[in-house]
């Protein structure tokens, strides 16, 4: 299985998810979300099989709050709900991404997402990162695993 198109599949998975979930448009951007690091909301989950690795999503709290509001109508911006929103996005993007990579005939397993504030825990691994502009906010996806280089 060639992996040359995994970046395109990941971008498409994110675009589809945000468009269907909240009618949000996604644009790739050169600059990373690093400037706002420290206050970013992040979520990370394991891609268990058959393409083992980790997928992380980081986004600005403002963007997480807008996404939460669009999806649920909640305007409280409660911390737990913001982190839940990022975790749910990571989970959905991961599923769509693996569906694209594997096709419909191969089952895959996802782990439970972890979420928090600040820097995405990198565990000393080599991550592939891509930043996006979404509805005026910054979102970054990071992936690591032997099939993603």
């Amino acid at each position: 299985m060639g992996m040359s198109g995994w970046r395109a599949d990941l971008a498409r998975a994110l675009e589809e998810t945000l468009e269907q979930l909240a009618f949000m448009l996604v644009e790739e951007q050169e600059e990373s979300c690093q400037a706002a690091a420290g206050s970013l909301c992040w979520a990370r989950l394991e891609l268990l099989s058959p393409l083992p690795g980790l997928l992380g999503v980081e986004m600005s709290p403002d963007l997480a709050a807008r996404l939460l509001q669009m999806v649920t109508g909640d305007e409280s911006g409660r911390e737990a709900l913001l982190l839940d929103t990022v975790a749910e996005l990571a989970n959905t993007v991961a599923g769509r991404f693996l569906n694209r990579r594997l096709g419909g005939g191969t089952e895959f397993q996802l782990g439970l997402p972890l979420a928090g504030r600040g820097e995405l825990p990198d565990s000393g691994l080599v991550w592939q990162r891509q930043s996006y502009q979404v509805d005026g906010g910054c979102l970054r996806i990071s992936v690591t695993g032997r099939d993603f280089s």
Partner: protein
Amino acid sequence: MSLRVLIADDSAMARMFLKRCLEATGLPCEVREAVNGREALDLLLLEPADVLITDLVMPVMDGEELLRQVKDDPLTAGVQVVVVSSASNESRRDRLIVMGAKAVLEKPLSPSNLAAVLQQESGDSWGEGEWA
């Protein structure tokens, strides 16, 4: 009479979204919530539901094990189970349907897809038509 719905998902945001989708269907619903499969099973045994909407990836007991136990127990086997998950594809979908799921819907859920599944069954399976 309202449709008795039990939502099982460990994500509070996902449960809120599902409730919003149910409201959008226009169907009268009484909604209860569980944060994992074990809690959902306990709630079902405590009080029956017409529909169980469940995620697959959950702590304590996942959605697939929940489906298996619901369908294995004569007390709960009649509950119509709708699986909503990002971890489903054609292969897994087919397996879940064989296990007894009424439908398997991909995240992000479209309210119209959920409405179609519920309305498709409104004349027969769901609560024998009493809720409509």
